[in-house]
């Protein structure tokens, strides 16, 4: 996720391929086997899905796949992903440039405020809007609202790159006669390419797998249709078919992102003596810019929070059951912490493999974990229900199984953060430790681990955030009687009980604020402009 991405320095961020030559020696077989096993665990739901899809034979595939309804979903989903991702990219880059590279008044404050919408789950934002006016339902409303909810995924990494960028390149371009606008397009923007594409990939994958927001906004995508199929028939040939299309769409996005990233290298041998870029003067343009920021923060953050407060205070269904609220809160925290610990642990071997021993196989293993990430929670849950009933009945309907589901659904988030942290620690330190007689694992634990602890913390925080707001997998897999803030919110919001739902949403935002605060503090500490 971008917050962690942002913590790399600009040069390292832009150099995903540059580590290839740093790997020393042969890849340890144990590490490779462990990483492969973890990737296989993550891929289990995908395998199950393909099995289900093909079980009925090709005729069944044809009947269920080539029907008008699937075409309708494909159009809806494709439009949403294209327009939503493009809009998020434009908004994210514009916000990043304004707060990092101009003399916008109050830019430090705007920089923080513009990042905060990631604390509010998209389905809570949607609920806020829908409770004010149903006019936001449908394609344009849905696209606008999810853009407001997800643009920080692009803003944060792009801002980090802009901050670390050496202005010398731009100055050279300007001195050679390029206009400021063309300089931005031809010099500045290409340098943010890796961060921008990575952010866009995350936004697109979120749009593919988001359920709650689009259900609230009454916009049909593959993910909401899969839930509908589950409502009407569990046996799932239809749902599996739709989910398989989703996997294909995700594969397409992964390949598209990799190829759009291209072979261009943006890494520098040395980050040089970069000085902070002199801020561009906005002049009179600062008034529309300020108005834009006020509107952005108002719409993406102010309005959802104000609506929550309003509903907590006035909803007629708001007889708050404090013990139910606290019990749901406790469950959410326990599950969130459990998932954060497990997922970070699982991400560690794969990160070490892909950073310290890069190879095609390592890339394949790492990228494979993105496929289940694009699956709706409900699909992973249905797969785990059947797999556990068939092979491990003792695990069925247990908290450990639910936590495994969370891990499968959020592994890439932890990977991005741990990889970024590992990449910052030169292998030379470990090598020195080993040359002095430490065994490899000991060197890793004693030299590298302490230095990547903040990165592991970021990974855990990201997984915690994703888990606390997870809905559909929790509904199906949670042990009987277990209610989380998200499931309670959903049960109430989906029967119009806006007032009763609001306290659960408010608490969800509140406990998300702790890890978000840690993340942004870390971000602030790392990427704050150098002291002058």
């Amino acid at each position: 996720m971008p917050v962690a991405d942002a913590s790399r320095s600009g040069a390292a961020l832009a150099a995903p391929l540059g580590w290839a030559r740093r790997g020393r020696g042969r890849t340890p077989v144990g590490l490779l086997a462990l990483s492969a096993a973890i990737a296989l665990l993550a891929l289990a739901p995908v395998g199950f899905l393909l099995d289900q899809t093909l079980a009925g034979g090709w005729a069944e595939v044809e009947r269920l796949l080539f029907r008008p309804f699937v075409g309708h979903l494909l159009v809806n989903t494709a439009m949403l992903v294209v327009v939503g991702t493009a809009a998020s990219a434009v908004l994210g880059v514009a916000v990043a440039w304004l707060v990092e590279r101009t003399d916008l008044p109050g830019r430090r404050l705007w920089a923080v405020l513009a990042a905060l919408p990631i604390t509010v789950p998209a389905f809570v934002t949607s609920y806020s809007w829908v409770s004010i006016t149903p006019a936001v339902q449908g394609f344009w409303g849905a696209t606008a609202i999810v853009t407001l909810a997800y643009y920080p995924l692009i803003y944060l990494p792009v801002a980090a790159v802009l901050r670390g960028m050496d202005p010398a390149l731009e100055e050279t371009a300007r001195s050679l006669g390029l206009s400021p606008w063309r300089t931005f397009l031809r010099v500045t923007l290409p340098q943010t390419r890796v961060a921008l594409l990575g952010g866009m990939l995350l936004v697109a994958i979120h749009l593919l797998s988001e359920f709650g927001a689009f259900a609230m906004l009454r916009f049909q995508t593959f993910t909401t249709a899969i839930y509908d199929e589950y409502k009407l028939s569990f046996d799932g040939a239809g749902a599996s078919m739709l989910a398989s299309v989703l996997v294909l769409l995700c594969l397409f996005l992964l390949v598209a992102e990799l190829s759009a990233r291209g072979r261009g290298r943006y890494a520098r041998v040395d980050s040089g003596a970069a000085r902070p870029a002199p801020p561009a003067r906005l002049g009179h343009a600062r008034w529309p810019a300020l108005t834009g920021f006020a509107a952005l923060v108002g719409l993406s953050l102010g309005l959802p929070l104000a609506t929550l407060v309003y509903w907590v205070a006035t909803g007629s269904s708001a007889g708050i059951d404090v013990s139910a609220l606290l019990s749901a809160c406790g469950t959410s925290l326990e599950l969130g912490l459990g998932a954060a610990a497990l997922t970070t642990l699982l991400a560690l071997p794969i990160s070490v493999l892909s950073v310290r021993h890069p190879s095609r196989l390592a890339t394949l293993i790492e990228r494979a974990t993105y496929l289940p990430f694009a699956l709706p929670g409900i699909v992973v849950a249905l797969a785990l229900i059947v797999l556990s009933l068939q092979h491990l009945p003792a695990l069925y309907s247990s908290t450990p199984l639910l936590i495994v589901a969370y891990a499968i659904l959020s592994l890439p988030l932890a990977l991005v953060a741990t990889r970024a942290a590992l990449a910052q620690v030169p292998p030379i330190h470990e090598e020195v430790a080993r040359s002095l007689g430490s065994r490899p694992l000991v060197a890793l634990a004693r030299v590298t681990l302490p230095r990547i602890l903040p990165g592991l913390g970021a990974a855990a925080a990201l997984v915690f955030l994703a888990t606390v707001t997870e809905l559909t997998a929790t509904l199906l897999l949670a042990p009987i009687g277990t209610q989380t803030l998200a499931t309670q919110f959903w049960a109430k919001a989906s029967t119009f009980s806006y007032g009763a739902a609001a306290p659960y949403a408010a608490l969800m935002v509140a406990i998300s604020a702790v890890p978000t605060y840690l993340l942004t503090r870390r971000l602030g500490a790392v990427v704050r402009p150098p002291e002058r």
Partner: protein
Amino acid sequence: MRFRSSQLSLALAGVAFLAIVAAGCGSSSSSGSGSLTLYSAQHEPITEAFAKGFEEENGAEVKIRYGEDEGLASQIEQEGDASPADVVLTENTPPLEGLSEKGLLSKVDSPTLEEVPSQYISPAGDWVGVAARETVMVYNPELIAPSELPASILDLAKPEWKGKLAIAPSEPDFVPIVSAIEKLDGEAAAKEWLEGFAANAKHYNDNEGIIAAVDSGQVAAGIINHYYWFEAVAEEGKDKVPSKLHYFGHEDPGALVNISGAGILASSDEQELAQEFLAYMVSKEGQEAMTHSGDWEYPLNSAVAPPPGLKPFDSLEPPKVTPADLGDGSGPLELMQQVGLL
């Protein structure tokens, strides 16, 4: 990025804080003379009313898993003998009929079945109806004059309704309407009606979406179950819900009464306690608890009055369609796929 001890301690402090809150929030455990597991596809208020009322009366503990009609039924099937469920409560009868056909339900005690009119219980005695909902048309009075209201749901397939209707084909409440038309007028008529209705209607995800669309004037009318409208009025206030309800009556398929029912799993080890739970659900106390839950469903025990404001149950004039006629609901699904609704 440098490792900073201040950051680490901050992170640790954060984790410690969360852990402490988690410990403090821990759920309370309850004790009782026994424990039942209820799989419920019903709304939370009505489920809780049954569960809490029974816990108070009996002393047993009721654990609840929520889900959707067919989803829960199929989950029970997957679980087989190992199913943790003792009792299943659904919004509609088709999933119960499906479980009954597969022999997964126990017979319900006859005194329990006798509390409810015989058309609202399982033909095989495998489940009992606990609540009812009426199919209605919700319409925007600014867009439709009372004189333009259709006499039958079948009229909504006519071309003059093009673009004026809302449909939520994935609502489990919609499927029985198709079954009812199929039963009363035949499969060809049902398919023709579906095609016409689908061509006239805009898609929405659920009944709530239909009401919102009608209230905001995006569409003129839609078919829903009555209780969603009463819930919307109760939560948002009458002034924010300009729409009105039109009851088809006259034994029209559009006046179909949907039955929410409960059954006992044959695999349950708590048969006796489960029977007591079902008996409680249809008893005067259970039905009153349900009508006071704010979920606006009709009670099926004639000794209990419906929530105030509802049209009297015996004036609804529903079509003569039985739960056996509706079956397990698989027929209409295929029909709906054929016309592109699913």
